[in-house]
Structure formats: C-alpha cells, structure tokens
C-alpha cells in the first residue's frame, strides 16, 4: 500500500501530520528569552546615555525662572532659543562678551590644518614603513608607538620652551604643530596596519610597472585607502576639536579654541549661573564631533579593495 502511495506522489506512509511536520526553513520566533535579554539591555543603556543629552537640550530651551522651578526632566513650557543665541553671540568668556562664535572659528582654524597635515604625513609614514622597509624601520616604528604612551603633561613644559624658541608660542601655528606631532603615533600605526593588510603583490606589480615611491602612493595606494582615511578623519577632527589642554597652553587668549571658551562660560564665578546658556553652549561645542559621526558613518565604503585580489 505504501508503495502505491509513493508512486502516486502523495505523502509517505511514515509521516504523522503533514501540516505540523518540520519542513522548509526553521521558524524563528521574535520573542525568545535571548532576544528579550539583548534588547532590554540595549534599550536600558541607550536610555542611560541619552538621558543627559535630553536634559541638556530641554534645559537650554527653558527660561531661568522655569529652571529654578526644579523639574529638570519636564519639557519646556514655552521653548525659546534665546539661550542659544546668547551662548553664540554674547555670553561672557572671561573678559570679553562675544559668546562662543570666535572660539568656534578658532577651533576651525586649528582643526582643519592639523587634521590635513597630520593625516597626510601619517599616511606617507605608514606606506613607507610597510612597503619601503629601510634599515632600522622597525626600530623607528617602535619608537613612534612608544611615543603614544607618554603622558602629554610630561612634555608640556619642554614643548612650551620649544615653541617659544621657534617664536610661535601663543599662536595658532603652535597649536597646529603640536596637534600634528601628537597625532603621529596613533595615525601612523593606523595607516601602517591598513597598508600592511593590502595585498603586497599590488605593490610589487607597480614596481615592475616602473612606478616610484610617490607614484605608487598617489595612484595605487591612496585610491584604495578611503576607509582608513575616514577613520583617521574622525579620530583627528573629534580629538583636536575636543582638545582643551594644548589649546589653553599654546594658543594664547585671542586664539582660544571653543572648548576653552566653553569652560570660561560655564566656570564663570560672577553672577548667577545661567544654566540654559551653559547647556546651549555645551551642546553647540559638541555639535561638530556629533555631526562628523553621523555624516561619516555613511562614508565607510566597504570593498574598495574588492577585485584587486582573488575572490
């Protein structure tokens, strides 16, 4: 009987219930204990980190009387951007009362050149360390990496002497030079490891084709390095933008970056603390790194090297 059943193509005699027998992809229920655990934890920590931001934004939109009322979690009854305008244009940073805007432009003037110069030099360094091994290149690299473990404070005074000797102490150039130097160890490590992960045979092929140091760098290596450039860009922009120490020491009062001016607003000892202005100023200062993170995430292009090697 089972024979005829098989021959006509209906269900085999051994099966119990055709509707409930496992068949096809295994069902994946959404609410499993594991998933609930994961999402609960994720949501908890997301809230934990987002709460301060929420408080800051909400407070910056309130008026001082409303803030004094107490409820820091409450939404503003009449949202107003007055505190933001004041933070940008007229809050007192030390002796002057021009708000944060001069500091913003100082930070821009510091961040852009130091980022470009440090990334370029580090990229060349990393490329040379991987592909053009020279006598002592390993030691050179080790010394460079060791540099990243020395606390900045140790080098502060010698650097003050150095920049004063160069005649640039208390200027934008001084901060730019310092940032470029201090970005070198980590960026060189980054680029060296990235270039080391690219197929060596590409470099060899370019050598056989007759290309030299710079030609290989600009025409072969750079076009393949977009992902690591984006990483370096994020690191440098956020690092330099958020820097306080070098700015306050080397820039001089007229060139203070935004972070230093923010500190001067928030830590002002005179008058009543204007919490709404402080919050607005803080959010304004943090906005640049925040935007960089949001924008650059999309720039992470994968598979730039695809097609160069097997696959």
């Amino acid at each position: 009987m089972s024979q005829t059943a098989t021959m006509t193509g209906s269900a085999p005699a051994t099966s119990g219930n055709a509707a409930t027998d496992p068949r096809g992809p295994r069902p994946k229920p959404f609410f499993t204990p594991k998933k609930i655990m994961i999402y609960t934890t994720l949501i908890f920590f997301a809230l934990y980190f987002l709460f301060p931001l929420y408080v800051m934004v909400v407070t910056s939109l309130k008026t001082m009387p409303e803030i004094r009322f107490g409820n820091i979690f409450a939404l503003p009854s009449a949202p107003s951007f007055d505190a933001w305008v004041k933070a940008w244009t007229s809050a007192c940073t030390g002796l002057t009362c021009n708000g944060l805007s001069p500091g913003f432009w100082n930070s821009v003037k510091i961040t852009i050149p130091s980022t470009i110069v440090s990334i370029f030099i580090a990229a060349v360094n990393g490329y040379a360390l991987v592909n053009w091994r020279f006598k002592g290149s390993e030691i050179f690299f080790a010394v460079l990496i060791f540099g990243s473990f020395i606390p900045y404070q140790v080098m502060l005074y010698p650097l003050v002497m150095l920049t004063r000797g160069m005649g640039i102490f208390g200027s934008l150039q001084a901060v730019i030079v310092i940032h470029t130097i201090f970005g070198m160890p980590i960026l060189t490590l980054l680029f060296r490891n990235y270039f080391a992960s690219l197929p060596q045979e590409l470099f060899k092929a370019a050598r056989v084709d007759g290309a030299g140091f710079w030609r290989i760098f600009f025409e072969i290596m750079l076009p393949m390095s977009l992902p690591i450039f984006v990483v370096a860009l994020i690191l440098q922009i956020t690092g330099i933008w958020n820097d306080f120490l070098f700015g306050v020491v080397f820039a001089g009062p007229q060139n203070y970056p935004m972070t230093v001016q923010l500190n001067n607003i928030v830590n002002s000892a005179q008058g009543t603390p204007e919490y709404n202005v402080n919050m607005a100023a803080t959010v304004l200062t943090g906005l640049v790194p925040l935007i960089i993170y949001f924008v650059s995430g999309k720039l992470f292009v994968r598979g730039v090297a695809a097609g160069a090697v097997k696959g």
Partner: protein
Amino acid sequence: MQPSVSIKDLSLNFGNVKVLERLNLDIAQGEFIVLLGPSGCGKSTLLNCIAGLLDVSDGQIFINGKNVTWEEPKDRGIGMVFQSYALYPQMTVERNLSFGLRVSGMAKDEIARRVARAAEILQIQPLLGRKPANLSGGQRQRVAIGRALVRDVDVFLFDEPLSNLDAKLRSDLRVEIKRLHARLKNTMIYVTHDQIEALTLADRIAIMKNGVIQQLADPHTIYNKPVNLYVAGFIGSPSMNFINGSLDGATFTADDGTKIPVGAYDFAAQRGAATKAVLGVRPEHILLGDAAQGMPFQTQAEIEIVEPMGSETLAWTKVAGIPVTFRCSSDIPLHAGDKVTVGFDIARGSLFDAQSESRL
C-alpha cells in the same frame, strides 16, 4: 647562443635563514622553465630575485647578457604575473594594462596600439572598460597576463598564476599559456607547486627543495629518471611505490626477504658490494594479468581497495609486505579481495641508494 636568463651563485638570506644557497641556473632564449617545489622551497623567492623585487645576498643575475643584479625591476626587461593577479582595483582594465607604459612616458598612440594588441591576443577587448571587481577569476588572470604582455619584454615571470582558479578554468588557462608561449616565443619562468602544470607546460623543470635545485631536466626525464628519492616521490600522482631492501649484484632483496631480480635495470654506473637500497616503481609500471607474464618479477597479490577514476582504475594491494598502488585500465573488472598476479616492469623502475638517496 647566449642564455636569456643566467643566475650565478645566487644566495639569499633572511637574517640567519638561508633561503637560497649558491644557486646556478641558465635559461635558454625562448625556453619555458618551471620552478616546481613545495611551499617554502624558495621558488617564489628565486622568481622575486630575478624580478628585482628582492635584494640578493650574493651572486649575480644576467638577463640577455646584461648584469641586472642591481637594476630596478622596470629596467630588467621582465613582465610579471602574480598569483593574486594584483590588478589595480580603481583602474579600468584598459588603464591597468597601460599603467606601466604611462609611467614610462610612452606616446599615447603607441600605448593604444600595444593595449589593442594585447587585448586581441588575450581576447579581452570587450572587458577594457570594466573595473577588476566586475571580472571573473579567469578574466582577471588574463588581464594580469596582458599587463606583462604590453611591456613587450623578453622574459615573462609567472608566480603561481593559476593557483586561485577552480580546476576547470585552471586547465583551460594552462593550455592558453602554452599557446601564448608558442605564439610569442618569449622566455618564460613559471613558478608552481602543481606538478601537472609543470609537466604539461615546461621545456625543462627545476625541482627545488630547501633553496636548492634537485634536478633540472625535461619533464620526461624528470618523470622517468628522477635523480633522487625526493624528486621521485614528489613527481607523480599517485606517487611512486617505494620498497626498502638491499641490493646485491642483480638481485634486490626486500626487507621481508622477497627477492626481486633487477637485471633489466639500467644502472648509471657499475656497482660493487651489496648496499642498502630503495626500489621505486610507478603505479603504471606494475602490470596485471597477461602483461605481467613477461616481467622479470611477478607475484600474487590481493586487492585491498579499488578506486575507479573513470579512464583508469587505481588499486591498492600489498607486495613484499608494503602497501603498493597500481594503475590499470578501467576495462579490467577488479574488486576488493580479488587475487591477481602483478608484475614489475623493472626496466622502467628506479633504484636509489638508501644512504645518499641518489639514483643508482
């Protein structure tokens, strides 16, 4: 005629590790040489030295009579094809092909002419506008060969060019490389660990081990008269059967006492006293049934395993207490447990000294 490539006393050390040691090799004009060996034997290193991508520790390299030991790769008159293809990913096929020519500052119309010729030879005209990411493995390797082709060089270097391809493509491209060599008649140096590629392509094969060339000869000699145990075991699949024993005059006595007359063997030199020796017989030189009758040594054996390969059958058995493989036509019905008569074709076998491992 002066050799195309000549390597004299070449040594290369990485720190204390000797990768190549006093290596000599002369390659004739238009010859197809295959460097064959297991990974780590120094064959790719040798190729990189010839290309100028590695500095040598000692010795000289001549290409077309010119000492190029200190020359840059581009000035050596070589083109190289890599295992991973090493195509520049951001450039189109056309720009990949022309990169070297553009670097050298060649006139545009000459570049276009050469690229067109290479594309025609390799049948890649439709691909010229594409990026490497949009090519299949076989197409990529063709472009990589084209990049060496446009340079119009005398010597082509191939570094395991087919190892990343699947079996079918590999055999297709193998034939194409052979065809290319027949058409261009350039000197080609080809590194591989695949003995089939070596046997099918080479004019001469250099078998390497630990940075030393073990044997340099044409494929037929390499296969039939290996100079030592290493070469004998490396070449051939399934590999040669080895029986340990001792040799006294024209009689080989296996370790279990089986006597095998080896009078038919063509000794390289007259031999004296009895010595420890190894008898090597290729699977296809062990004959079955009627064919076994004429052979100097015959024995009864029981088949243990049969591996039908389609065109032929491999069978595993035991002779003189040692596992032995033999090859026979797939028309002969064989089954595990069958008792058969097998005969050794001693004249085509190999005898090695057990101590020195070299051919007797």
